[in-house]
């Protein structure tokens, strides 16, 4: 199961990559594998205010729907509209082309509530 070294992670299997106070958010390889073929992504609205660990998007697979929680608080500044037409990208490239949204971070201290790659790997092992 791929875990990217310099990303941060949540227990709900979202990843976040922070650069210049903007968080790019997606779901992990583990999440996409557990969900199976993703058929639809309900993206958040651009400009929506999101709270850390609150639901902000939904992924649908053939026979399941899963809420995605924002790893960090802030304002949605961009969403990956490619996922609307090609949701399968989330399965193929969860850490790169399958990113879900970019969030302008309102409180950078919240990053300390997230797991490092090392911690997430251990979390997966203990859960698995």
């Amino acid at each position, binding site marked *: 199961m791929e875990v990217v070294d310099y990303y941060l992670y949540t227990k709900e299997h979202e990843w976040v990559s922070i650069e210049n106070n903007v968080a790019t958010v997606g779901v992990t390889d583990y999440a996409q594998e557990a969900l199976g073929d993703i*058929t*639809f992504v309900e993206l958040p609205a651009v400009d929506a205010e999101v709270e850390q660990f609150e639901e902000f998007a939904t992924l649908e697979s053939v026979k399941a729907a899963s809420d995605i929680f924002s790893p960090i608080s802030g304002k949605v500044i961009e969403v990956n509209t490619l996922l609307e037409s090609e949701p399968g990208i989330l399965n193929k490239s969860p850490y790169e082309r399958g990113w879900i949204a970019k969030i302008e971070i309102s409180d950078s201290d919240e990053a300390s509530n997230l797991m490092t790659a090392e911690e997430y790997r251990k979390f997966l092992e203990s859960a698995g």
Partner: protein
Amino acid sequence: MIPYIANTPEDIKEMLRVIGVGRIDDLFRDIQPAYAPKAFNLPPGRSELEVTAWIHRLASKNASHLIPFIGGGYYDHYVPAAVTALVSRGEFYTAYTPYQPECSQGTLQALYEFQSAICALTGMEAANASLYDGGTALYEAAMMAIRITGRRKIIMDGGVSPIYRKIVKTYTSNLHFEFAETPVVHGQSNRQEIYKILDKDTAAVILQNPNFFGAIDDHADIIAKAHQTGALAVESVYPISLGLLKTPGEMGADIVTGEGQSLGLPLNFGGPYLGFMAARREFIRKMPGRIVGETVDQKGRRAFVNTLQAREQHIRREKAASNICTNVSLCALQAVIYMCLLGKEGFKELAQLNLDKAEFARRQIEQIEGVEVKRSSPTFNEFTVYLPQDASEVVEKMIAKGFAAGFPLGRYYKGMERYMIVAVTEKRTRQEILDYARCLREVLCR
């Protein structure tokens, strides 16, 4: 007949022993005495003969001999014998949606054809596999608009069936939505009033065509105005009228619902009926209920599936598009058989026949002294009649003459006690219409 509870006293004793409970009443200990029923009125069981006789006695109280001129959303259309015969086949005659749906390709194909027919009829892009009835379908449309827009205000035109409006308000009474109802003007949607309250908080404008008074209206202008504010337009329709009228799709509606009873289902004293719903394709994931889709199986053959199930409660639980919607597969099947039997041309002819007979009836009724047929807008097979007396009393007197004469509007509209709506379907013969007019004249002259 079998007793109410089939278990023998020995069975019950054994079951109680296994679970370690002394008496049956102990199972209900948690219910406070105030909420517990004092007694059950369960007389001893009766024989099949007695029960059949009793049911027949009850059925004889039904006033099935009256010649109906009542519409109000439910219409006395002819149901061809082939519809009843086909729908009664054992392969179809199951009460509910199958739980391993893909095993039942025939049922799924029938529902898929039903959806296709509803789309063709309404001019919309996507339909679901049916809802409970026309009123609850309209409620589901209101909820769908609220989900899509994220807004909480609903404008309901006064021409929408008062029964439906009540259903929508009852179902949403604890959800804290804002409802605004605009009264009709000269029998039509009151544009001025609607535009006055249409704003950025409005999720939907709910309209009906023909409206409850029978008036036909082209809502394209209202729908365009609604779209300008980001609101959706919901249109409730009478399917038979669509054989002639501009479709809600052509008017630009976003969600269309209706009562499908007129599509081959008998009146049945109130049900089971058939709700239908269609929408623009982009809203399909916000639609409640079952949706059947076409696909191919492993061998590449055409096959049907229940699709987009992630909207539904067995997947999404409390966040489902609806937790109270139901589908009425057998009624939907009946409707699709009916529509196929008529075909496109037959459907148009049927609509024309309804219009022609209603126009004939209108001309007869108009000639009665003191009676006035409202003509401020065109009508289909139903129109509003002003009487020189209380309409409820007139309807009462007409019953004695063998007619269900119309729907008295005073029941739902204050100040309209002297009005009734009269519906005329293809089933009404020339003689019935002439007799109706003669009897109405007699009743009013006295």
